[in-house]
């Protein structure tokens, strides 16, 4: 502890006040476990402790642009921002007093309050309210309440007026006479005692009062449907329902939002209401699928809050097709796979309502969104989407091309075969393989013909052995006489020219026959099981083993 001399307290007070600006910034910027945060607070606390070694309190007078201690200016600033004096002054604080024994926790709470963003106009609580709620024991403040009322002199005017309104003549003597003449006496009343049951009931009431009251408000809004009369009433009511949906969603209460929509649908469908009223109520459903609400849904999904799948599904079920575009929008913005899964499921449910609207998502610049939309279209399974899907067959991203080929394979339809045939010559092996599988999925004669033709094409022999094997595998899916004959013929085909390529072809055929199965081909395969070409021999043996195993 340093020795005290006259004027020291002013220096110390100045130091404390000026440190407020620094502490305010630190507390705002750093988490409470950060060493900078901890050190700053301790430093500030020690300054107070040092001050209280000599003085019992630190009383600061607050003016608009300066702070005074013992009539001395200890802080001054003419800035609009970062002006600690103005910061207190504008909320009506005129004096701040820190008392000896100021606990560390209390100082920390104080600093946390004053570190709230300067732009706090949007908040519902001002500094005085926040101080009040904390109920500080060692920090006191004096406020100027005048600015709370529009009329500074209201009190004296009101008192004069209310007194002036006194009847010219009261009947006070009549009262006295009546009192003397009537004999009725007062009963001895007493305080009503409380019982254990009363207390239990009160505790229950207080518990229930702490629960969310939004469902209660929603009940009231539904009552108001039947109490309202004018178009304006219904317009306002629709607005209130919208606010309730938005509020519920913003708090992650998807269940309540679903309930609102469910009851609205029930009311629209089941109650004898005028068309105009129903139209207003439908506005709420449209709003629930707007960018605003779906954006909030996205935030909830990404926040990691527990979102029950059932509630979310139910909410989506009541939405209209206008929700498709906002859902597609957030699909590209969501951060977690979990959240995207929810949205994909929602779009699978909603997409049915307007497949073409959903297909617009295929034009999205983000490849993963396009792939998700293709997946959604495949799950919906509506052939109307094929034309749009075909356009993405040439998408720049291979992952999209693979997805669309798979989808086209599942959907089939006009133009698909042509596209798949073209994809068999794609530069990417994965795309070619996907096309093959898609053609196999389609399973039509035309699809078979495409594969057969491709195998018979001259350049086919130059493809990798593994790829050729895939083609034959795909062909085996048909397993009809044409395919079997083709495979047997290929198996038997020997050639003096390009022998290695020919063995590859025969090995593929053997492999495919193994997939086709049937003991009738065993004698033929057995003929080649000891062939000199290792690749061919192993394929034949593999096929035999497979067929025998299947038997």
């Amino acid at each position, binding site marked *: 502890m340093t020795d005290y001399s006259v004027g020291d307290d002013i220096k110390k007070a100045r130091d404390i006040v000026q440190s407020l600006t620094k502490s305010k910034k630190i507390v705002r910027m750093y988490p409470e476990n950060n060493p900078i945060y901890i050190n700053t607070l301790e430093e500030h606390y020690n300054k107070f402790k040092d001050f209280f070694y000599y003085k019992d309190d630190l009383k600061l007078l607050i003016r608009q642009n300066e702070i005074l201690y013992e009539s001395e200016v200890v802080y001054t600033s003419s800035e609009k921002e970062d002006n600690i004096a103005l910061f207190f002054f504008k909320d*009506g604080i005129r004096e701040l007093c820190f008392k000896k*024994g100021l*606990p560390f*926790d209390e100082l920390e709470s104080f600093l946390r309050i004053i570190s709230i963003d300067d732009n706090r106009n949007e908040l*519902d*609580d001002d500094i*005085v*309210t926040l101080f*009040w*709620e904390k*109920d500080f*024991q060692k920090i006191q403040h004096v*406020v100027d*309440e005048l600015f*709370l*009322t*529009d*009329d500074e002199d*209201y*009190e004296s005017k*009101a008192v004069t*007026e*209310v*007194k002036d*309104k*006194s009847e010219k003549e*009261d*009947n*006070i*003597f*009549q*009262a*006295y006479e009546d*009192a*003397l003449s*009537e004999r009725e006496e*007062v009963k*001895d*009343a007493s*305080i*009503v005692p*409380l019982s254990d049951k009363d*207390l239990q009931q*009160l*505790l229950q*009431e*207080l518990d229930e009062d702490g629960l969310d*009251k*939004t469902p*209660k*408000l929603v009940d*009231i*809004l539904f*009552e108001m449907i039947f109490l309202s009369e004018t178009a304006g009433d219904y317009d*306002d009511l629709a*607005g*209130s329902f919208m*606010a*309730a949906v*938005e509020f519920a969603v913003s708090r992650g209460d998807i269940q309540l939002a679903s309930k609102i929509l469910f009851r609205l649908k029930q009311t629209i469908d089941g109650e004898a209401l005028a068309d105009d009223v129903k139209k207003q109520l439908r506005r709420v459903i449209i709003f629930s699928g707007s960018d605003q609400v779906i954006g909030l849904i996205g935030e909830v999904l990404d926040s990691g809050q527990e979102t029950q799948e059932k509630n979310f599904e139910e909410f989506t079920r009541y939405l209209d097709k206008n929700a498709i575009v906002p859902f597609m929008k957030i699909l590209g913005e969501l951060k977690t796979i979990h959240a995207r899964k929810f949205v994909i499921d929602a779009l699978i449910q909603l997409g049915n309502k307007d497949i073409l609207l959903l297909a617009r998502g295929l034009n999205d610049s983000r490849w993963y969104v396009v792939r998700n939309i293709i997946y959604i279209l495949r799950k919906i399974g509506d052939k109307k989407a094929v034309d749009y899907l075909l356009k993405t067959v040439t998408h720049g991203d291979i992952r999209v091309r693979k997805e669309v080929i798979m989808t086209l394979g599942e959907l089939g339809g006009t133009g698909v075969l042509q596209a798949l045939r073209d994809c068999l010559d794609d530069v990417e092996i994965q795309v070619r393989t996907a096309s093959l599988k898609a053609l196999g999925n389609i399973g039509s004669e035309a699809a078979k013909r495409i594969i057969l033709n491709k195998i018979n094409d001259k350049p086919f022999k130059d493809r990798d052995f593994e790829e050729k094997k895939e083609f034959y595998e795909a062909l085996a899916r048909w397993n009809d006489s044409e395919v079997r004959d083709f495979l047997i013929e290929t198996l038997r085909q020997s050639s003096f020219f390009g022998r290695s390529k020919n063995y590859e072809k025969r090995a593929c055929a053997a492999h495919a026959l193994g997939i086709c199965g049937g003991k009738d081909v065993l004698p033929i395969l057995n003929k080649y099981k000891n062939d000199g070409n290792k690749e061919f021999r192993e394929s034949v043996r593999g096929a035999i083993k497979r067929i025998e195993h299947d038997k």
Partner: protein
Amino acid sequence: MINKDDIELNKTAKEIVNQLSVVLRTSQIHDPNNVAVTSVIDKMIVMINSLIAVERVIALELKGDFFYVNDARIRFALEYLLNFDFLVREFKKRELGSVIFKDKLRPDDIKTFIAAFIASGFSSSPFDLISEKVFDLNSLSVERLKKNIVESGSVEPRKMVKKTYFNAVSYTKGVINKIKSGEKVNIKKAKRVIETMVDQILEQEQLLIGMTAIKDYDEYTYHHSVNVSILSIALAQRLGLNKKLLTELGIVAIFHDIGKMEIPNEILNKPSNFSDDEWKLIRKHPMWGVRALLKLRKLDELTIKSAIVSFEHHLNYDHTGYPRVKKKSGIDFLSRIISLADQYDAMTSSRVYSRIPMSPDKALSLMVERSGTQLDPLLMKFFVNMVGIFPVGTLVMLNTRELGLVYESNQLFGARPRVMLIIDKEGKRTQGNVVDLTEKNDQGEYLRTILKTMDPNKYRINLAEYLL
């Protein structure tokens, strides 16, 4: 940390008050040597002696309806409500104000105190008996209950309360006009106004409640809103709501009648009874209130609470009242509180319920009759205790042939408020002399006692003239 110590101290003090209540309750049932009594005594001794080691003296004092330990008010704890309530009643009954523990307690000391306490319940001078019996004890002493928290001469609290009240009325007037003209409303200001009221209710409950007796019929809407807010906060603080919730309730109450701003003033201020069509309009104000509140600001918890109360404040406990609803779910807790306050103020103000205002005590007895049907019986119990048997503004005839107005309720002795005399014993007009009905003569008899209550409205007595 000092703060944590403070919290601990408060907790211990709370537990001591609770334990004293437990000891006294148990002792009234069992013999002093019964293990049920000795075990609770032992527990209390441990508590007190450990605190005495730190504080040296522990003074437990009853002021108003609250206990203080070494001048620090014991904060409300719902779990101890019954025991606190019991102790307050038993202390008041015996005119016992303080028990001061000065040294290490022994079980026999406590037993002596208990015996004196029980015996005093049958005595005509209960405090004197306790005082005499514990006189020789070194470890504890007692003091008589102080008559009033606010002494007769203390003008300051009254001034502050008056200022708070009119600030609130002025704010309400301003805010309603702003809403009417479609301007934005600053909720921060509302909070500040109500926070001051909450503080005053916690410190000077009866003074602020007293302000609600002043009725200004030209500014009825604003005064009524503030009165309902005050009465609701006062009731809710007895129910154990914390400061933040009390503030919310106060704001909600201010706006409970906001739907009435759509009803023409000619109807609201009509001197005669309403026609059927006018009643039809009046019955719409709860719904209009919801609409106005929901349009006022973005939906949040406070707006939701306000809207619910606006809709339900005329729905009775038994679901009668208005507006008629299809689904009869329970009436919200805050709505029931505000409904009580609203009915009481409306009855005593004579605007909607009846063209003739009722005297406060008549209104209260009518409300007691409605308890369990129209009004929540549990809340009604608290409300009666809060307003008192003779609310401020009641016209009373005293046994001294003096006529007066109740100026300030007495929470300790409900039947003995402070009264402003308006006619003296000679039947002459007088004004300004406030007497305390707890005053006794040398023989220990009360100087004045209320004989009967009368209706000040019936005799056109303007309360403001006397009470402001």
